[in-house]
């Protein structure tokens, strides 16, 4: 199960990576067209904002597997093994609840956007699919925490090293 979750987040990271490369090329193309042809790409700011959403939310789960998120270890490092396991369980459960809430509120927001049919100003991109896809990305984050809890159940403790 843990392996499957990691695989899902690994593939989600491809979406994020591809989007980042796309963002780089789009912005460079915009600069070139504006500077040399006096014809900037219309709506490039809007596209950048949309692409940024995918970059963040489709990598956030994999960042959790890689222990990239910043934690304070001042107390944790001084605890015995059992203390570390207790703290790991406690923080992971809190973490799980909050990521679930984040997924929910973003999904909820997308439903409001469907109702209002809001779009971006220039390219008229509907907001709701972007927000739905962002929520899907956040599910990757949620299941990454589940993978941590499974790891704890297998007898491990969380550390800054990739397990």
């Amino acid at each position, binding site marked *: 199960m843990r392996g499957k979750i990691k695989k899902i987040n690994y593939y989600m990271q491809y979406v994020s990576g591809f989007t980042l490369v796309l963002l780089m090329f789009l912005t460079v193309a915009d600069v070139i067209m504006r500077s040399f042809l006096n014809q900037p790409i219309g709506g490039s700011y809007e596209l950048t904002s949309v692409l940024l959403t995918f970059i963040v939310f489709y990598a956030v789960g994999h*960042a959790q597997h890689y222990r990239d998120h910043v934690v304070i270890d001042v107390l944790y490092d001084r605890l015995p093994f059992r203390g570390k396991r207790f703290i790991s369980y406690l923080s992971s459960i809190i973490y799980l609840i909050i990521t679930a809430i984040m997924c929910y509120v973003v999904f909820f927001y997308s439903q409001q956007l469907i109702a209002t049919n809001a779009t971006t100003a220039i390219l008229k991109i509907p907001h709701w699919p972007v927000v739905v896809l962002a929520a899907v990305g956040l599910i990757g984050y949620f299941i990454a925490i589940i993978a941590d809890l499974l790891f704890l159940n297998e007898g491990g403790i969380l550390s800054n090293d990739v397990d």
Partner: protein
Amino acid sequence: MTSIEIGILGIIVMLVLLLIRVPVGIAMTIVAIVGNILLSSFWPALNKLGIDIILITQNYSFSVIPLFVLMGLFLSKANLGADLYEVINGLIGRFKGGMAIATIGAGAAFGAVCGSVVASVSTIAAVAVPEMRKYDYDTGFAAGVSAVGSTLGVVIPPSTALVVYGALTEESIGQVLIGGFLPGIMTMILLMITVYLVLLWKPKLAPAAITDKIPFPWKKIKYVWAIPLIFLLSIGGIYGGFFTPTEAGAVGAFLSLLFSVSIGRLKWPNFVDAIFSSVRITAMVFIILIGGKLFGAFLTRSLIPKALTDFIEGLHIAPFLIILFILLIYTVMGTFMDEMATLVIMTPIIYPIVMSLGYNGVWFGVMTIMMLLTGLLTPPVGVVSLVAASITKVPSMQVFAAQWPFWITLIISSVLVAAFPDIVLFLPSLMY
């Protein structure tokens, strides 16, 4: 409960959550959600949370973060930091302490374009320390110097920490980035002078002028010339008003990619590695940014910053002393907390106070980062020193012990920037 009591309780709960190892951004988000529920009501607070999360991740200004990180990782994966060190070392390495000075110069130059302090120190320490060992430099001193030089990337633009400060305070990200340039260069020069002074005091730490001829690595010039050029084009573009910071990041990343591929240093696995590392770092920074922005908004609603500002104004103490006290708090926090964590936790509380005292937000941003920089070197969390120790296999206590004169220099440099704000504000004042 009054709103201020809710705010104070929120800060205490956040500190407890941090102690039980809840990630910084998530701890701040939890406090913001619960606090906003208490200050308003359940559904409006949750509704606003969903909107805020999306608005923060769709903010055009913040798209500079993944692009500058990508630029640095392309250059880092192409191993250009090592070449840069060899060239600078070829120029000045033969003089007394020259290799240590070269290490600081290369660390600052590569750290600036690299964007990641850890990537920078890993590159520079791996190449500089064995070279210094070969010529009988003290190993602790060698590892310490490589760590010190690499930290300068946090101040010299492009710096993720400066962007995050701009994002949290809504100061101009371009101005904050440019503001870091002169203080970074000044600190680099002061650190080089410190090497000279330390070696006057303890000559045994380094050999006398090296009589062996260190051949100048002419072949490396074809790799190194692009680093200052990419820096000048991207950061100069912001300065000259040609680019937004996001565009500068994209142009810098694109040129780094083009150059690294053209010299055959960036193969497909390295390319993919650079992309994946960039998106993971971006996700990490944004989780902190989301937490920081939500926490800041909650604090504002709780009226704590206003109460603190009123309290401090009522003390009738010279503003400069208050600033010094604030910077002392940053330095102490930086010794046991990650610099990004300190930045996002403290900025929403401290920034309104500093502004009410009449100081400039861009100046304070650079000051903040300079104080946090000292924390990157000091135990127990001094991450850069620990990375340098780990890579060079030098005991970490030796690295820490060798660094204290440089730590004092960093403090002196910060005091200079505090006393003469124009060191920060001169370049931003000339920007288009």
